[in-house]
């Protein structure tokens, strides 16, 4: 079972490799990936350096191309595909049909991983991408219960990768317009959810407020912590109600450590850590814990138990210091 870790820059890449990642995923410094933040990601020469570094240690490196090419600008995405092939990278993570088609036709030997942004949640969708583009792997959206993951793994025509830890996206990924409804930019169109230039942290007397393009996402007194303002984790007032509540989800992170044995038994090929936008310290901490957990499990599957120090370490780097199993757990749904 592969441990796949995020790298937003060379320092994070090194942190991931040092802490025991089997593979890392990263993106270019433009809108070809959905973490298009200032100061993040790799130039073409840096990508070459990153690939060389990972390969020199016998690790894999995947290029994330998970946005959807805009009409008239497709060349930027095609060039990124060509670059990955030229650098001998180990896989592309792609969501868009035209891009899958381009990569499959021009670089048939470059493995394709279906991005979570393609939102393939079932056998029919996976079969479509396998037959049309010979994808080797698919990343499952965070909408399936553990039972559904297990059932799908039994029949899937491709290897499966799941999110193990990190920020929790609660919508079917790649089909969420909440960010663009408020800001005009979505991961699909602009390369980021809740882009930082629309975010405002305000102090209003005794209250702290977070706004996204002027829309009030959350409000709290000094004793409470506010999360980064994304639409799905705001506090709103429902019709016929008076109090503001987290109607969709509260600021929390996904942590599936307790599901590790089940994911392994289901035959999941890769565990993905979210967080290309996070610091090298985060990458290092999370990678260490998951390396340790996976190794402990593989050494003795029958006696595996989740160790308290792992969860403590992960809680420290989690949003709101709260973690959940998200949709894996039917009750959450």
């Amino acid at each position: 079972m592969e441990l796949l870790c995020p790298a937003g820059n060379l320092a994070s890449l090194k942190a991931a490799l040092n802490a025991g990642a089997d593979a890392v995923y990263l993106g270019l410094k433009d809108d070809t990936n959905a973490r298009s933040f200032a100061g993040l990601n790799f130039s073409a020469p840096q990508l070459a350096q990153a690939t060389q570094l990972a390969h020199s240690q016998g690790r894999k490196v995947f290029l994330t191309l998970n946005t959807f090419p805009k009409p008239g600008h497709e060349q930027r995405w095609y060039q990124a595909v060509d670059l990955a092939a030229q650098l001998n990278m180990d896989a592309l993570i792609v969501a868009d049909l035209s891009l899958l088609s381009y990569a499959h036709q021009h670089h048939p030997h470059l493995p394709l991983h279906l991005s979570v942004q393609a939102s393939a949640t079932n056998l029919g969708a996976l079969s479509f991408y396998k037959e049309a583009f010979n994808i080797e792997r698919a990343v499952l959206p965070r909408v399936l219960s553990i039972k559904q993951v297990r059932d799908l793994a039994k029949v899937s025509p491709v290897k499966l990768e799941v999110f193990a830890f990190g920020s929790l996206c609660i919508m079917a990924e790649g089909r969420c317009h909440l960010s663009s409804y408020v800001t005009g930019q979505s991961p699909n169109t602009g390369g980021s959810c809740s882009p930082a230039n629309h975010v405002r942290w305000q102090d209003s007397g005794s209250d702290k407020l977070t706004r996204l393009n002027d829309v009030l996402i959350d409000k709290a007194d000094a004793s409470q912590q506010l999360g980064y303002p994304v639409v799905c984790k705001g506090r709103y007032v429902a019709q016929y109600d008076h109090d503001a509540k987290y109607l969709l989800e509260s600021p929390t992170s996904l942590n599936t450590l307790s599901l590790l044995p089940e994911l392994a038994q289901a035959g999941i090929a890769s565990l993905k850590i979210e967080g290309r936008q996070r610091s090298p310290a985060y990458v290092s901490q999370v990678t260490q814990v998951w390396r340790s957990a996976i190794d402990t499990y593989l050494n003795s599957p029958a006696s595996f138990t989740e160790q308290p120090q792992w969860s403590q370490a992960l809680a420290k780097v989690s949003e709101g210091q709260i973690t959940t199993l998200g949709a894996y757990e039917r009750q959450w749904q």
Partner: protein
Amino acid sequence: MAIRESMKISLAPISYCWSKADVEQFYQHVATSSIDTVYLGETVCSRRRELKFADYLALAHMLKNHGKHVVLSTMALVEAQSELNELKRAINNGDFSIEANDMAGVYYAHQAKIPFVCGPTINNYNRASLDLLHQKGMYRFVMPCELSKDWLQAVIDSGSQLQYEIEVLGHGYMPLAHSARCFTAKHYQLPKDQCQTICQRHSKGLLAQTQESQPLLRLNGIQTQSAAQVDLISQIPQMINMGVDYWRISPNKLADVTLGDTLATLLNQALLNDNATLQDTLTQFEQSNTATHHCNGYWFGQPGMHFSEQSAAS
């Protein structure tokens, strides 16, 4: 300028959980309206069983007998094997084409050689992707709701003439996201597996406002909608000139059938008329029909919730 070609009015599937009696009454009105095309079926949640597949099929035949073009719509988020079976059943109905709202719909329709419409939740963001789906059997696509007029024009202008039809959501609450979690059940503190289809209480979703009383979202089971209704009535003449084939209404009340009927009648008359006259009529119509909370931002490349006063001539 003369009208390029007629544009037709289509009715999206009802996205809420209405009682069987309400649904049947609704489609009786649709049957006698001038609306051209009707999409039918449950697209949001398989736990809603007020109408069974056979009931939808009966409605489809009733509407067909009234001269409507009927398309059977399928689910946007397909997870369980039982949902896949239901999807295949819809595809193999024998009489009607389908609206695929998940790539599984595309896959099984292609396998069965059934022509299909790509609904708004299929990620079509460029010409090459659309052309590829056309090769698989897509004969029409509904523009994903976050895309704009400029995006559509770029798609139309790139390459040869489109071999498939264009449909744009012109009126109604927009589907913004789908989740495994049922937000309506969560609000009522019910587990999803014992939800009692509580979403039936809210015939147009449950409004969620910010703490500054700004309407933001509508919670519709596992679906999150916009709190504002998209309104592109004043854009109709321009959309006709661009080559939009279908102007979609996503209904949340009986009055939306009246709206569709009025617009369809106007469009039929407009064939004998010119664009300026149609524009005047529509502007008057829009002014007398403006509800409190409208938006059109996406069409103008802005945040979806914005309302821009740009005229049709822009």
